[in-house]
């Protein structure tokens, strides 16, 4: 699981997605795509962003929730605790 987190965090686009979800949690794919294009100058296809979201979701860093007919993405920083624990806890 932890190796997935490092891999998930390795791509600048995925860190930008986390930055934007940290700024406002619970975004539709459309809003994330617009933020990446307009604020980060990342001109990726919707499909490419969807794939980045899948990687983040597999690493447990992003969850999706359906609300009626809408689908929203949320950041979940809990898996990062394992990284902090690893080197900061007393030996």
């Amino acid at each position: 699981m932890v190796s997935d987190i490092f891999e998930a965090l390795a791509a600048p686009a995925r860190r930008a997605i986390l930055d934007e979800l940290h700024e406002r949690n619970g975004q539709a794919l459309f809003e994330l795509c617009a933020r990446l294009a307009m604020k980060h100058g990342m001109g990726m296809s919707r499909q490419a962003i969807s794939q980045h979201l899948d990687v983040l979701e597999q690493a447990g860093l992003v969850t999706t929730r359906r609300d009626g007919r809408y689908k929203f993405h949320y950041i979940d920083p809990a898996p990062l605790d394992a990284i902090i624990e690893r080197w900061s806890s007393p030996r």
Partner: protein
Amino acid sequence: MRIVVSSVLVDDQDRALRFYTEVLGFVKKTEIPLGEARWLTVVSPEDPDGTELLLEPDGHPAAGPFKRALVEDGIPFTSFAVPDVQAEFERLRARGVRFTQEPVRMGPVTTAVFDDTCGNLIQIARTHDSP
């Protein structure tokens, strides 16, 4: 060549007319019976001779899956210009309109996205003069 009409695919023309006039504030321009449906358009009272918005029935079998897929991903069907996105957001929210995207500034534009109750998401946007 000029663009005089643009359309949104609505699941119910009566409900659409109520929402687009009573809630959003557009006014009815033309209503012509056409078989089971009507050629039904609205315009902005600020631009009554401007582009008309056609409230077009979404009866084609492909329209439903198409609209649902857009809504699931939060993609607006069309976009309207407003002078102040935050003020419009507050006005519409107070009238019970559901927003899937609250106002956010992204570089030169501020946008928000709401549900038109007829199966579409609609964006409101303002382009800022200076970045």
